[in-house]
């Protein structure tokens, strides 16, 4: 539907432009054929300038209609410009030569020039803006092209590497151990610090989380979600430093990964 509309628009604008050229050309040819001068018959002058005036308006209108992605009020400006031009040409044909004197000449010429300015200005402004936007779009596309794209496997590998790092013994911290020289304080501890024990708040708590955390880190945690089970297995493999165990379980990892991928693909 949109393609059809676009084709019609293109056809209409082309026809407007062509008819403008033909009218202007007809005006020029007519002027040449009648050897138009200042002293020619008023009818000849009216026909010539009428044709050229209308032709120029239609040429500019056609150009305006050809602009892609026009801005807001585009159609109103074209309409306004065209109406002003028609009024100008119409007034000229009506009043010439009897009423063709000051101030009528100023009104008619002003109206026509205003219409031409509107049409020409609108075409120019739209073209410049489109060019700026096109340049910005090109730059953006270039930037997007330069952005590295990662495959699903690469992302998975990166996730695996991050998991391995995060579950290492160092927990992401520097392995350097700060040694502090054992030395006595250069101050004296008060009696309460040396003689009394710290008061403690005792709360009933069986800390059942310990077993859950141990299972989660070993990949044995049973949950109802397939994805979580698979992830749990992956984590268990990631933290397992025993190479022999890892190699024997490689098939298992592959299967669990495939299971997870299938699940993700199936949504």
């Amino acid at each position, binding site marked *: 539907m949109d393609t059809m509309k676009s084709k019609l628009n293109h056809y209409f604008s082309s026809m407007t432009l062509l008819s403008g050229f033909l009218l202007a050309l007809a005006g020029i040819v007519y002027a040449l054929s009648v050897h138009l001068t200042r002293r020619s018959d008023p009818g000849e002058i009216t026909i010539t300038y009428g044709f050229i005036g209308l032709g120029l308006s239609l040429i500019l209108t056609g150009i305006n209609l050809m602009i892609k992605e026009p801005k807001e009020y585009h159609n109103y400006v074209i309409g306004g410009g065209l109406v002003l031009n028609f009024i100008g040409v119409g007034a000229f044909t009506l009043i010439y030569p009897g009423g063709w004197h000051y101030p009528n000449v100023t009104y008619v010429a002003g109206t026509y020039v205003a219409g031409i300015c509107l049409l020409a200005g609108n075409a120019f402004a739209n073209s410049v803006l489109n060019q700026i936007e096109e340049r910005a779009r090109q730059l953006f596309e270039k930037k997007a092209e330069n952005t590295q794209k990662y495959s699903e496997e690469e992302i998975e590998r990166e996730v695996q590497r991050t998991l391995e790092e995060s579950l290492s*013994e160092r927990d992401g911290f520097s392995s350097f*151990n700060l040694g502090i020289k*054992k030395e006595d304080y250069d101050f*004296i501890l008060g009696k309460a610090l040396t003689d009394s024990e710290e008061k403690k708040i005792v709360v009933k708590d069986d800390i059942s989380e310990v077993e859950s955390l141990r299972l989660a880190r070993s990949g044995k945690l049973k949950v109802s979600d397939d994805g979580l089970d698979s992830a749990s297995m992956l984590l268990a493999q990631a933290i397992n430093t025993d190479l022999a165990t890892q190699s024997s379980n490689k098939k298992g990892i592959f299967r669990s990964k495939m299971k997870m991928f299938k699940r993700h693909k199936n949504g």
Partner: protein
Amino acid sequence: MAKGLDVGTMNIICADKGDGSISFAQQRNAFLEMESNDLTKHMLDNGKVLYTHRGNNLNILGEDAFKFSNVFNKSIRRPMKQGIISPEEKESISMIKVIIERVLGAPEKKGEIAYISVPANPVDNQLNVLYHSKTVEALAKQLGYSTYLIDEGLSVVYSDLSESNFTGVGISIGAGMTNVTVAYMATPIVSFSIARGGDWIDEQVSIATGMAKERITAIKETDFAIGSQYEIGSVQGALAVYYDALLTYVLQHLKRKLSETAPPDAEFQVAIAGGSTRARGFVDMFEKRLAQADLPIRISSVRKTRYISSSNGGDSRDPIYAIARGCLIAALTKEASLGSEAQAAVSQAQMAEPVGSEEED
């Protein structure tokens, strides 16, 4: 038995497992400098006040420092600032050392496991937590512990999110810092800290209202509830404004950090802990801001630590113990896994022995 240690800007808390219970030893991470004389020392000894003295100077430690600061109208000194050892306080390390020795105590056996909470690197500050982490670790190691470091946010996940298989967001809003960890199956995906916490709120309110910071802190802890209606220009009103600003700021950074990763398609529960979440109405405000934040993960619910402190009558929630508890859980898990590894090694050796003897035969 393994221990968990939370070294916070305001409190240093040690969690230790008992028989079906946890015992918490807690001290304020602060001290007050006073002039020393025999009479003062005698009085402090009789009152069982913790202090150190050098020449004519005397440092009162912990909770008592706050009490005496009110009596003598003197400012307390803080060994830590914005979650790490304060570079502005020359006696910070020695004071932290005394407090850690006090709450952690000596290990029952050499090499006893201790997990220590440390902040993640902040996203909004040039601070680096490595020096702080290594120093605190060394202080505990010197006592004879086998030490491990854990992110504060992750310890909240360990403490509060076992029901969701340790999948969720652990947020600890302390005095000096806010720590956030997004974990999936006990594995951190995103971990960061923000150099703003309760102290930042107090400072901003103090600047806005012209009231002393200590007074602001007192009002915040005793006479403030988020969501209540307060007069324009009141301290409580300003507190509500800055609580809201802090939460929005934290969630903005969380959204940004999550957008940089590819979080798994799972439901994430949010657990919030830390002293600055004690204010009434905190969870409601947090839930509102969370809904508006439009995070790129699915949030199932928000919970403040369910931990119940018997010190306040046995039925009040206190979110400040969650971090130490999470550290203890990590330590006990480590101890259990090391124990099973040792057991496996022994049984492997026992199985190898008969084979050797057969060969000899």
